[in-house]
């Protein structure tokens, strides 16, 4: 054994002796512990970020007109100070998030009941399945011009497009989730004397839950894209609008700042809210025998 025992403490505790970094085994143990600790994860991300920032600033110092094409990270950080000081970024950020949250709540509260209702009856669900599939695959951005002609350059236009983009994936997935519940379960519940409401509450809704979660994540993802595109096309104040006007004002640093904000926001939303929600839902409800 090349472990060096702690002076005095070895007899009193049952813990493994602390390995010395100097020996080879100790180093291996240390590395293994390091790899499994949370620090390694954070360190890894930090390392990647540092490498990426270095490459970025290298490129921006090598090209001819960095202020126009690719400002260095430092300049971008400086521009964020400017935008914060003027209060533009917080206001725009709030606008964009409000649109997303309101739109997706509306989409969820309309889409899930709609999908469930259509799924209740086999004939009705067979009837509406193709058309829901059709509307799900027609992208919301493509119908933007039509909505713009109908409702003009207003807040309503953005909202309707967000609602359209997240309603159909959610409703379609809820519908296909209900269709996927085996009839045996419904019949079993009915045989045991369940009312139709109980069948919906205890059989169909839990059975469709994994699909609803997937649809929610998909729908909110589409809605996020639609918010950004909508702000650009219609011209309402928000992050998309910020990067779009920054282009015409020749403020490339502000464009990159906006993009980084959009990316970080979506990472946080997707990885720490939607994905855990989907995973836990599937773990809880998805392992039903089919």
């Amino acid at each position, binding site marked *: 054994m090349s472990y060096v025992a702690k002076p005095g403490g070895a007899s009193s505790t049952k813990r493994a002796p602390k390995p010395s970094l100097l020996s080879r085994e100790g180093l291996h143990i240390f590395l293994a512990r390091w790899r499994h600790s949370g620090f390694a994860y954070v360190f*890894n*991300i930090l*390392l*990647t*970020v540092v*490498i*990426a920032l270095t490459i970025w600033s290298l490129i921006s110092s090598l090209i001819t007109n960095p202020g*126009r*094409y690719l400002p260095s990270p430092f300049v971008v950080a400086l521009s964020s100070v400017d935008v914060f000081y003027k209060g533009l970024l917080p206001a725009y950020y709030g606008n964009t998030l409000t649109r997303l949250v309101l739109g997706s709540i509306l989409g969820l509260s309309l889409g899930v009941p709609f999908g469930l209702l259509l799924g209740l009856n086999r*004939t009705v669900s*067979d*009837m*509406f*399945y*193709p*058309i829901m599939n*059709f509307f799900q*695959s*027609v*992208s919301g*951005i*493509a*119908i*933007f*011009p*039509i909505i*713009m*002609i*109908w409702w003009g350059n207003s807040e309503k236009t953005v909202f309707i497009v967000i609602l359209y983009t997240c309603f159909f994936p959610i409703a379609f997935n809820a519908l296909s989730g209900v269709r996927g519940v085996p009839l045996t379960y419904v019949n079993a519940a009915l045989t045991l004397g369940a009312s139709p409401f109980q069948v919906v509450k205890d059989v169909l809704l839990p059975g469709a839950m994994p699909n609803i979660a997937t649809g929610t994540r998909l729908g909110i993802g589409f809605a*996020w*894209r639609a918010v*950004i*595109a909508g702000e*650009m*096309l219609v011209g309402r104040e928000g992050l*998309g609008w910020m*990067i*779009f006007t*920054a*282009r015409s004002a020749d403020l*490339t640093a502000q*464009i*990159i700042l*906006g*993009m*980084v904000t*959009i*990316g*970080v926001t*979506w*990472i946080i939303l*997707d*990885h720490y809210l939607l994905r855990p929600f989907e995973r836990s839902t599937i773990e809880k409800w998805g392992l039903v025998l089919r």
Partner: protein
Amino acid sequence: MGAGAEMSIQSTGGPSVHSSDAANFFQRAAIAVQRRIGRQRIRAFLLGSIPFVAILSIWFLNDIFVWRQTYEIPSMKAVVKSFFHLQRNCPGIIGLLTMDRACGMTNHIFDSISRMLLAAVIGLPVGIGLGVLAGMNRTISKLVEPIAIFFNSISGIAWIPLAIVWFGIGWMTTLFIILNTVVWLMFFNAMLGVRSIAKVYEQSVATMGGSRWNIITDVYLPGAMPSIMTGLRMSMGFGWRALIAAEMIGGDSGLGFMIFSAAAEFRIELVFLGVILISLIWMATDRFLFVPLERWTVERWGLVWKPS
């Protein structure tokens, strides 16, 4: 269609031969069609077409009753006419194929589709290659994955302003936006596909004297194929959406550009035509190319034994 239509037709088929040949022919034809396609499929098709027929007939009736003005909802005739209106000076099929400037409509369609194809030709190998590399090697994946997550989270649309600054308005911008959407999605799917392959396979190929390259071509790529095909379908779907948005804001041709500029001129029949074409092109490609491809791949390579 009654519940036991086929049975009743067959039982009464014998005596009716003498009475009328024509009716007998139709009955036989109906039975043949049902046998060939399947009753369930016919039922699903008929039921599924009801909402489409309803929407189309409401649209058609709008011409007569004018619930909404024609500048809000154009007449069907105008939509069809607008297609030929843009094509009116087109010098025949040769001009159509050589993308003559007079053939406005088909040029827009070809532009969009060729951008998509170009992005697929460039983006798929890059994405799959990066993904297989990252799936093979932990160090590479640790470095590339955070970057990929970040770039995938900046949706393609958010790149449009910067792409316009870099490449100007036109081909390069739209291509860049689609590539951005396609490459990262393919990367993730290929990486996850490679990671899901059991170690036993690569070890056995290595034991039998296979080189690194053999392992890639014979183990990693076939093993990751179902996942790659799912990624292909998904990335093409997202790419098509991103293409439309990119053409609207930073393009000078293509279907997205067409509908956006038509909306600015309040030519709603052209907008309707464009939206219908966009959705039809995507649905047809998905239905007749990607879905069969995915199904075939899963059948061919998806049921590989996995040690538990």
